[in-house]
């Protein structure tokens, strides 16, 4: 199932966001080695096409729940490079004010991006609920989220998608099958060749595609988003890809069989797309220019931003802060 490719202007934007995602990832790797990243750093290297292709398939007002390898989605949906970088560094200026880290942030109103938590699978029921709530309000919004091959083993994935199916909700779930959950090969997660076949447990459509072909990702996702919006219920898509780094920066992926990375290097989604797109010298120069300023500014902003004031730790648990704020006995002066 392919729709037609987006106009060249849009493709150039997709190209820019692919490059931006990768550029930010590379800079984040450096910052991590300098000990400036708070928490783990999970790379999307090699998987950018899934985030970008799918994000561009959404309409304004749609909701998306990205996971830790979907910084591309977050950027393409309107978050700034500053948001991404400052959250990696858990600065006061970050979208979470340093409360959370990694790719855990969002903005329901402005970007429709929902912040994930570390417990994998949890976003599937939550996005289902957003689609449900929107429908109750008479809105035709689609809610999309991502799970890995590993996360597709969770009961949350199953319960959430089944609920969406029974309610025929406009939910799109993308399985990013990169063949591994941390060090665990997909063969230890499931007997299925195609995880898209899990759709059969819900009686919903399931599709599989090449996760390293941004236009294929875009067209398959776009069709699913349209079907979902038209009331055809939830859609499950599996995109096959490979994580081109370890699970996180501390992991060298030595468990990958020899040759695996080389093989996939040939399938690099950005190089492939560039071949198809053939950007002109001018177009490319413009992208490079835009990238450089954006990335430098984001890193600069994140690094120069102050850490959050420590006392903020005691704010925002409840709407009423006084609930948790009181002076313990030993802090009171007699």
């Amino acid at each position: 199932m392919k729709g037609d490719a987006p106009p060249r202007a849009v493709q150039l934007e997709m190209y820019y966001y692919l490059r931006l995602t990768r550029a930010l990832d590379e800079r984040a790797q450096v910052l991590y080695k300098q000990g400036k990243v708070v928490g783990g750093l999970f790379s999307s290297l090699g998987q950018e096409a899934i985030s970008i292709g799918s994000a561009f398939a959404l309409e304004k007002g749609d909701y998306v729940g990205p996971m830790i390898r979907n910084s591309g989605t977050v950027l393409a949906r309107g978050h700034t490079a500053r948001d991404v970088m400052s959250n990696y560094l858990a600065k006061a200026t970050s979208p979470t004010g340093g409360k959370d880290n990694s790719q855990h942030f969002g903005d329901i109103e402005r970007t429709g991006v929902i912040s994930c938590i570390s417990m994998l699978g949890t976003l599937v029921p939550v996005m289902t609920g957003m689609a449900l709530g929107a429908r109750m309000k008479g809105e035709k919004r689609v809610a999309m989220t991502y799970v890995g091959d590993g996360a597709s083993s969770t009961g949350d994935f199953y319960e959430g998608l089944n609920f969406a199916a029974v309610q025929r909700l406009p939910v799109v779930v993308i399985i990013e099958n990169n063949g591994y959950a941390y060090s665990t090969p997909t063969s230890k997660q499931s007997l299925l060749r195609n995880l898209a076949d899990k759709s059969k447990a819900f009686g919903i459509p399931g599709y599989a595609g090449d996760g390293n072909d941004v236009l294929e990702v875009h067209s398959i996702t776009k069709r699913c988003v349209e079907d979902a919006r038209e009331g055809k219920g939830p859609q499950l898509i599996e995109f096959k890809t490979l994580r081109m780094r370890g699970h996180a920066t501390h992991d060298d992926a030595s468990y990958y069989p020899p040759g695996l990375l080389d093989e996939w290097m040939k399938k690099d989604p950005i190089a492939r797309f560039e071949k198809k797109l053939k950007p002109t010298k001018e177009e490319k120069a413009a992208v490079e220019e835009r990238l450089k300023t954006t990335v430098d500014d984001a890193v600069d902003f994140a690094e120069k931003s102050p850490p959050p004031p420590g006392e903020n730790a005691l704010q925002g648990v409840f709407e009423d802060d006084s609930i948790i704020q009181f002076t313990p006995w030993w802090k009171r002066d007699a």
Partner: protein
Amino acid sequence: MPELTFLQAISRGMWEEMEADKSVFLMGEDIGRYGGAFKVTEGFLDRFGPERVLETPLAEEGFVGAAIGAAYVGMRPVVEFQFIDFIACAFDMIANFACTSRYRWGQGVPVTFRGPWGGATKAGPFHSRNIEMWFAHTPGIKVVAPSTPSDAKGLIKACIRDNDPCLFLEHKALYRRIKEEVPDNSPPIPIGKAKVVREGGDLTMISYGYMMHRCLEALGQMKDVSVELIDLRTIYPLDRAAIVESVKKTSKVMVVHEDTRTGGVAGEIAAIVNEEAFEYLDGPVVRVTAPDAPVPSAPSMEEVFLPSVADIVQATRKLANY
């Protein structure tokens, strides 16, 4: 003024909130035509329709997640667990997702979790559990446990209007056992405020839920001891001020709960009293609780398991004479 049972008061409170606010809706198992396992939502389907009385698949983690998502877009879901024991099946979604949401990214989660709770109904280990402290110890959720129809109605309304997750505990043994006149369109009762049910000078007795009624029964048997009886009504946040004020007056305090002993709220109260009123204390903070065991099925064992009126009397006398 209508006389309502505990159950009717809860039902009525939800009804009035749904009438007043279109964003309020119900989710759960068998809550529609059947009206819920205990009939708390009887009649709601006819009045509010299947969209606002949404029957879910048998999947607590899933529908709790869906409730959170709906709350994110401005709805106010009220989620029924057929028995509150099944909230354990949605524990991760509540403790990790809902309870941290406002803190980590500023998104409040106005969801009310409710269901039949507690023992003394011969319902066995999986339909009697006191789950309050799992959540009172989880920052980000309020825990409410009324003991009278009027408090139940006022507090369910407060939970539904609250912008943070609330856990509303409905003691099964009270559903049809107690009645009270409760006005229509009564206002919400603030969460976090305890109630002095009876004033007294010899000692302070603190309890909540069904045990409040055993405490009252015990007091009926001890006209000679002047007990100040406090109904916590809210387990989290605790009304520290009310507790401390009373203890400063009576200098002695005992806590009665049907929850198991270790990590029960009585320990928390002991610590608060130590920190805030140590110099007023003329006796140890006394705990009358269930032992650290699951709730047994056989009535003969459940009787021993739960604090009895006799236990409360014995503990009260010993503390009073201390």
